[in-house]
């Protein structure tokens, strides 16, 4: 069909030329000089250069993605200063920025082409089942610092903005296979086409591995964390007129991941959790003129988790039989946003808009009821170049969250170009994190032999959003004409009303529960200070070096002391309860400070040898660091990833666009065979895998 089409269009072209004139093909006419074009790089498509953005920003481009050898999207964030990447198990990566790390790292907004994948119920990103293949990512922009004015709610500590290839970005077909240690077995196929008014690309992929395998001579409970995800992802661009562009994106994934323990674990036996995820997104961009355009964006994300299992007998007479535990959950997110970008003068650009979001969840065994949460937002941002050397970014977002609370998140930054190549930036910004459904409405309870219950979560509710104020002073320098840059800054952030997992003593629950019930409460204020730097250095035409360094300190203090005073209880019991809770508060504050490593850094080097050989090397260093919900402190970790690739195919076939290929060998953790990750169970072995890709 496609061949027929191209044959048809070719013959039409020939006929057209034959009718038009007898000129030899290829001779330019004045039309080639005089033709008019629609505006392509319109006001909203032009991004600010890094020296003029209101926040510090890290860009991970395609070249870095390839050179890093990463298979998992989450691993790429090791290339961002102050960002932590760990694995709770083989299919649960944890990505956090500036600490407060736990399995649900909640304080960062994550967007894929403007679609928020930071999802209810838990407020986390499920990297494993994301219907997105790493090969479709064109670049990742990481905003380091609060950015609600530009990126919406929950952009508290930072924003990860993943941008995928445009529809015509993949005009050829490509098949790629990974095989290697730890059961790594991935396959992906992509193809696309470009036409006068339509462009499209389609990706089909299946990825999976056997997770963390037990290490010989190391005593630990083995993890059952095999996983496989199959996905389809498509992007279509349609241009009905020169001024209108319609971008349609669709995706679906089907995942299966193993959870649970082989040793009898009351509520967590070994089983497969099944997750289906889908999204549909449509964006309409209308270019009004050179200086303004208008955009409407709608998307829906659906996610269906099936995880039902029967308990094993435990707790003696309290739970003699087998009980049904269910983590089944269905969530839907609908989001609608309009945005208007206009340049009011050559020195001033305004972006403003409004949006609404609806999140609904059905998870009878996790939440108190099935909530439908709606939030509304209004945002505006102005970039004003007062003089060529002085630039001010000022903006704010006002939002009304699902709990009826209204908050305004302002941001102001001043960028001063000392010279065209050297810039100083000072900025202050505020952002809020809204409580998640689990924090406000969590209720995880299974009745056992009466009167006993397994009552894990009983959220008290009534939470307020966490508030972050961030201040920074930075320097951005362009070192040479080749594009080498240096970006250094010092920052001081204050976060108030931090929500933590509060071990509650509730006389209505605790005495009859076989586990300690948990709630969520805003009990801490904290600070984060530090220094971050990134050097991007070009060593000649064929080599590139990126160095990231971060030095951080953090601390938290409880904003209350325990004050249990249950009537009818002896004073000694109330005093014991208060002692226990105060110990928990102190312990949390102590661990909080350890969630940032004092020093961390990464180094990525890539070199293109002649003859189509490419070397990529990534070296990562992280000082001892803690995840709040992991039992142990992660010791000093240093590891090295290497990738060596060879392209093949003749120059002729390259020009014809057929028969090209690449073989790559990736060695992860080349230095050590068992380094510690998030917990004692997740110990990385050296992993080797081979990638073969064919383009035709």
């Amino acid at each position, binding site marked *: 069909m496609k061949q027929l089409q191209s044959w048809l269009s070719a013959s039409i072209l020939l006929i057209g030329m034959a009718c038009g004139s007898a000129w030899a093909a290829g001779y330019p006419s004045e039309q080639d*000089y005089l033709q008019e074009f629609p505006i392509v790089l319109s006001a909203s498509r032009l991004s600010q*250069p890094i020296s003029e953005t209101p926040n510090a920003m890290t860009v991970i481009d395609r070249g870095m993605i390839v050179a890093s050898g990463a298979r998992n999207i989450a691993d790429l964030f090791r290339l961002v200063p102050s960002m932590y990447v760990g694995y709770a198990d083989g299919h649960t990566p944890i990505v956090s920025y500036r600490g407060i790390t736990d399995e649900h790292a909640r304080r960062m907004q994550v967007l894929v082409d403007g679609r928020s994948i930071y999802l209810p119920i838990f407020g986390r990103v499920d990297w494993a089942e994301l219907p997105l293949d790493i090969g479709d990512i064109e670049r990742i922009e990481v905003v380091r610092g609060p950015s609600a004015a530009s990126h919406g709610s929950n952009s508290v500590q930072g924003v990860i903005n993943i941008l995928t290839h445009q529809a015509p970005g993949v005009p050829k077909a490509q098949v790629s296979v990974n095989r290697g240690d730890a059961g790594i077995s991935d396959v992906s196929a992509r193809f696309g086409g470009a*036409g006068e008014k339509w462009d499209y690309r389609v990706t089909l992929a299946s990825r999976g591995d056997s997770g963390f395998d037990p290490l010989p001579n190391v005593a630990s409970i083995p993890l059952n964390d095999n996983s496989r995800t199959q996905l389809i992802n498509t992007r279509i661009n349609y241009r009905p007129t020169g001024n209108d562009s319609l971008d349609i994106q669709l995706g679906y994934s089907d995942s299966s991941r193993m959870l649970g323990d082989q040793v009898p674990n009351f509520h967590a036996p070994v089983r497969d959790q099944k997750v289906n995820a889908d999204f549909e997104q449509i964006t309409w961009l209308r270019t009004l003129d050179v200086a303004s355009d208008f955009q409407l964006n709608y998307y829906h994300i659906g996610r269906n988790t099936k995880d039902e299992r029967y308990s094993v007998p435990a707790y003696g007479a309290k739970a003699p039989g087998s009980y049904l535990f269910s983590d089944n959950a269905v969530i839907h997110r609908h989001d609608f946003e309009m945005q208007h970008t206009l340049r009011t003068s050559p020195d001033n650009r305004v972006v403003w808009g409004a949006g609404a979001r609806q999140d609904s969840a059905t998870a009878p065994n996790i939440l108190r009821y099935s909530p439908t949460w709606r939030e509304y937002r209004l945002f505006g941002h102005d970039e004003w170049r007062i003089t060529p050397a002085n630039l001010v970014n000022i903006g704010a977002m006002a939002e009304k969250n699902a709990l009826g609370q209204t908050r305004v998140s302002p941001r102001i930054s001043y960028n001063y170009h000392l010279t065209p190549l050297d810039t100083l930036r000072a900025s202050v910004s505020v952002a809020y994190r809204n409580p998640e459904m689990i924090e406000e409405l969590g209720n995880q309870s299974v009745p056992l032999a009466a009167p006993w219950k397994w009552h894990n979560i009983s959220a008290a509710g009534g939470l307020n959003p966490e508030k972050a104020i961030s201040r920074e002073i930075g320097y951005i320098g362009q070192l040479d004409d080749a594009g080498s840059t240096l970006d250094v800054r010092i920052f001081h952030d204050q976060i108030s009303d931090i929500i933590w997992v509060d071990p509650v003593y509730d006389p209505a629950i605790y005495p009859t529960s076989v586990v300690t019930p948990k709630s969520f409460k805003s009990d801490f204020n904290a600070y984060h200070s530090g220094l971050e730097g990134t050097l991007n250095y070009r060593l000649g035409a064929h080599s590139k070096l990126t160095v990231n360094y971060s030095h951080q300190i953090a601390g938290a203090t409880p904003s209350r002391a325990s004050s249990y005073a249950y009537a009818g209880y002896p004073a000694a019991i109330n005093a014991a309860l208060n002692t226990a809770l105060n110990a928990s508060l102190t312990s949390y504050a102590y661990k909080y400070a350890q969630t940032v490593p004092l020093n961390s850094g990464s180094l990525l080097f890539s070199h293109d040898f002649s003859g189509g050989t490419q070397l990529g090397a990534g070296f990562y260093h992280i000082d001892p660091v803690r995840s709040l919900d992991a039992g142990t402190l992660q010791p000093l970790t240093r590891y090295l990833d290497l990738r060596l690739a060879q392209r093949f195919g003749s120059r002729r076939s390259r020009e014809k*666009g057929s028969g090209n290929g690449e073989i790559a060998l990736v060695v992860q953790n080349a230095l050590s065979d068992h380094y510690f990750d998030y917990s004692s169970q997740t110990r990385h072995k050296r992993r080797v895998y081979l990638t073969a890709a064919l383009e035709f």
Partner: protein
Amino acid sequence: MFRQLAILLTASAIMLLTNPVQAEALNVRLVMSGSAPPYQQFSAALDKALAENSADVTVIETQADAVSRSNGGAKIDLIVAVGMKAMELAITDFDAPLLSTMIPRASYEMLREKYSSLRSSNAVSAIYLDQPWERQLNFIQAALPGHSVVGVLYSPDTPIVLPRLPQGMSLNAKSVSSAKTLFAALENILNSSDVLLVIPDSEIYSSSNVRNILLTSYRQRVPLVGVSQAYVNAGALCAIYSTPEQLAEQVAKAIISFASSRQLPGPQYPESFSIGINNQVARSLGIEMASPDAIRQRMKKAGGGGQ
């Protein structure tokens, strides 16, 4: 335009009446390839330039598709053909000396070759639409110092004569055989070039391709140098080009010189040119651009001339 023509004709008539001793006015037939704005701008600017110089010239304008040898019947001293279609018609249907303009050099030479049997060389000349290679490269050096590798995409049918390069510059030219391989070639060339220079080629720079080429080069942070203000408006970083008005002035000069000497100047590139810069794109790419005047000064200094 007709009013201007009428004024010009009246002016010429008055001049004829008031200056009876002078010889008969030069009869110029202006043949246009179309009626789109650029042709109209050319015509209006030509009228203006001739009037300003009080040239004793009568201009009769006709469209290429409406013209025939019998048309008008008056004696024709010189034909000015605007555009490719007009030149082809003028070369085949008229005998008078021909000055072709608003035509790329390669196409002018192709038509000369094709109809070489019909015309002797001294009776045909041209003022091209395109800029000489030297000027374009000089412009890139002046506008984008440090951008030394110039990427060029062309289809195999395009006649391309690679120029001698200025010191410190290299050309990265790739031929694209079909639309299917365009983006592979584009990616390849963007990876290894500092700047992408447009070579007019309807196979590559069609309006739908231009969109994707601009988006791709912008994402790869490689600036695009276009050949018209339209490219700059669409999102090219900058362009060097000659406007219809600038061509018309040069054509007017050639007509005036022809009126006295009955000789056409040799085929030549446009003398004056314009520089277009998209400051928003420059800023977004983090490129510090000098003003068009400063770029002109640098070009002059480098010896490329410039007006």
